[in-house]
């Protein structure tokens, strides 16, 4: 467990990578943000002159407005200061890095008189004054690291930390004319999931079983207790020929999900209030027939379909869910699995009283009418709670 501080981006909307000012001022301010004071460059970027927040103008006349913020950086930008150490980039985060919750800190406007705009947050009853503390803690619901949601707003090699939703209300009952947020800092806690996890076999066909094992003979290692899903990722192309990464995740709760990243397809965006939100196209498979066992030390899955005609290496990651119950915030590389393509498409007939499935199983360069008998995937039924 450690403390994390993340610099603010220069522009939340721009694809331009965040730039960092080499000459910061007033390190002392941010020393109180929780461990970031030793990162002078980081603090400089936060307080650099000319770095302003975002302004939202409300014309609704409702007396309140809701804004959403997505924080975005390049994966190579050194922005994560862990335990006061010099900032590192997303790509340099240690394996097993998991964010245990974040909060956003906003400067008291009275304390930043030198900016081109007074650091101001018109929110609730603050109205730029009467703030009793140096920093105001804002809601952080939904704040998480996201790097698998492609968009026109997230270019290759970028990631986002978001989204944060704020509701602003006029302090005097009148319509808020604008709301400005500037000079804020993100801070939080992180955990490193040290592990000695392995899996076998190292090569398989779709539909085969794969078993993951956690060696916890070393007390420092973690079990699978907080592993929320296991993701199979492989490179492919979208319908437009663009390179993407397809992620097929099997969740601990039994569902499965597939989505694409790294290209423009098939992610969908809504754009309420001018702020992009990300809704990756995905399909879910109810009731998880892919899970044979999901225990503390052993996880056994049937490799789900979704790899189309892919043959090659598949990256496996275990996604860690914060034990405090907040949103997912970390991933642990598990290794590389080699998937062999077997085309199971065709026309099938349901055969009464047949006790297994006979499916086409066309492997590369093999016969086109090859078949294989397989078990019916995990027939099961679970009753409602008895006596609950």
């Amino acid at each position, binding site marked *: 467990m450690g403390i994390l501080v993340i610099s603010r981006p220069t522009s939340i909307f721009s694809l331009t990578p965040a730039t960092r000012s080499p000459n910061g001022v007033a390190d002392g301010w941010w020393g109180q943000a929780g461990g970031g004071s030793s990162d002078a460059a980081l603090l400089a970027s936060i307080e650099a002159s000319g770095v302003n927040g975002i302004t939202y103008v409300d014309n609704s006349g409702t007396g309140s407005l809701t804004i959403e913020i997505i924080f975005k950086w390049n994966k190579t930008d050194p922005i994560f200061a862990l335990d006061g150490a010099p900032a590192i980039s997303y790509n340099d985060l240690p394996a097993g890095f998991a964010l245990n919750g974040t909060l956003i800190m906003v400067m008291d406007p009275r304390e930043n008189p030198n900016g081109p705009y007074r650091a101001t947050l018109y929110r609730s009853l603050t109205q730029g004054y009467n703030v009793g503390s140096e920093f105001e803690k804002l809601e952080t619901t939904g704040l998480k690291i996201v790097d698998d949601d492609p968009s026109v707003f997230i270019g290759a090699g970028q990631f986002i930390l978001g989204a944060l939703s704020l509701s602003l209300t006029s302090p005097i009952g009148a319509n808020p004319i604008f709301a400005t947020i500037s000079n804020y800092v993100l801070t939080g806690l992180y955990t490193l999931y040290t592990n000695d996890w392995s899996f076998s076999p190292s090569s398989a066909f*779709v*539909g085969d079983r794969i078993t993951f094992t956690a060696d916890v003979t070393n007390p420092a290692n973690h079990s699978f207790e907080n592993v929320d899903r296991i993701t199979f990722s492989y490179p492919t192309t979208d319908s437009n020929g663009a390179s993407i990464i397809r992620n097929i995740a099997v969740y601990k709760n*039994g569902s499965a999900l597939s989505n694409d990243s790294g290209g423009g397809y098939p992610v*969908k965006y809504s754009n309420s209030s001018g702020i992009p939100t990300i809704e990756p*196209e995905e*399909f*879910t*498979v*109810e*009731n998880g*027939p892919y899970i044979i066992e999901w225990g503390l030390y052993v996880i056994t899955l*049937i490799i789900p*379909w*979704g*790899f*189309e*005609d892919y043959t090659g290496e598949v990256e496996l990651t275990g996604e860690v869910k914060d034990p405090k119950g907040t949103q997912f915030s970390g991933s642990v590389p598990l290794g590389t699995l080699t998937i062999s393509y077997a*085309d*199971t*498409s*065709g*026309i*099938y*007939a*349901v*055969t*009464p*009283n*047949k*006790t*297994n*499935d*006979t*499916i*086409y199983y*066309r492997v590369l360069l093999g016969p*086109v*009418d090859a*078949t294989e008998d*397989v078990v*019916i*995937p*995990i*027939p*099961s*039924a*679970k*009753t*409602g*709670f*008895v*006596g*609950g």
Partner: protein
Amino acid sequence: MRDHSPIKIDTFNGLWRRGAPDDTPLDHFQSCNNIKFSPGNDVLTRDGIGISQSVGIPLQSVKRIYNYSTNNGNTLIVLTYVAGIGRIYHVADAATVYGPILAITGMTDFAFASYGGRAYISPFSTFLVGELNVEKGLSGEFLYVYAGDGTAARKAAGSPMTGNMTIANGAAGHTDPGLHLFAFVRETVSGYLSAPGMNEAFTTSATSSVSFGNVTASGSPLIVKRHLVATRALPLPFDGDLFNQTYYFVPGAVINNDTDLFLNNISFYDADLLEDASHLMDNYAEIPAGAVLCMYRSRLVLFSTFTDITTGLVSAPGEPEAISQIDGLITFPPDGNPVTNAQELRDILYVMKRSKTISFTDTGGAPSLWPMILVDTALGTGVHGIATVLDSGGSNVDFLIIGTFQGVTLFNGKYNSPELSYKVESLWKNLTHKDWRLVQIVNAPIQKELYIILPNHTVLKGNYSNGMDWKKIRWSPDIYQMGVNTIAIYNIDQIIIGADVF
């Protein structure tokens, strides 16, 4: 344990996916997979699947299967999609595959209707319009007709004949003397009559028959007859307009092939000219492809073409390829959404968008005059969302089963509530609306089961052997080691599943 009251569970009524897991009634499952229900209360592993074809090169990458009843048997018509090309095959039986009978680039799906043993095929795909996925006919594509005999499907309807024929007095005979206009009408193997072509003017004499030469012939086996049509004697002076006239079929004046270049010694009186052929000039020579096809009172109905997603094309009764461009049109009031389905029930044509339903009633007049009634302003379905029943369209007894955004719903002129899928509402509401085109429903009355293909390429079964209402239907999902795309019933009770590469 003295005061312990045992809980006895002796009935299993299928999946309950509504609200929190804690809400699951004791006689339901909070989760289940790959099971089936016996006629009693037993729960068993579902039936296994086997391969359906016994041919050396089985079909792969199956996108869509329809049941296709030919004059000789119950068969399947199958769409595969490989490398951007959709190919349609006719699977006559396990060992016999015809085709591809049609191959079109970009055909990811097709609409289908059968009539008189022939298959009417309309290629369509999904287009992104704004943020909507819209199913509509492919651009520059047409309705096709397949004879069911393994020959390639051909474009439905047809162009009028062209060329310059010669006309002369023939052997002694009779006509009403005067200026007549003559033309020929092609009849295709599927019975379609083209618009009159090769129009010429000729002044007949009272004591002579009329002979025709240089009649265009293509030699196509698809053209089985060429009919002579003529006007009655026209008043003079003639304005020279060969087309905007009233033509009639000349009785008995037929060339019974598409090879002869002449038709000699035709005698007739104007009083014999009774069967009007003028309406043929209003028909589509090429019928644009649409995403919706159905039969309604022996008429073919087609909706959602590439250029018009709300206007329906309705054929003449018994002539699926004869669609008037003038009065063969019906319109679903436009609202930006495409028409997605159409189905006859109790002599009424119900037409759906994804969230709206209207009806038309055939009054015997031109389709453009049919009265339209708004049935439901919130519920509709997708392009495969009306349950098909064996080889008929969708009506079973006296109702339809429709997959709406609300749920799987019985429809008997109104959408019944609560819906059949009441017990699995959370599962249903979790389906992505934008992929509603993938929802396909088949009703198997022999098994007393509904089979629903979901957008996640699994199957949701609804067993109604205890009764078809929301309380008694027993739901259970089936999942296979491949993604399922489509389902059909074959030979009364054979369930056929089509799988693609996923």
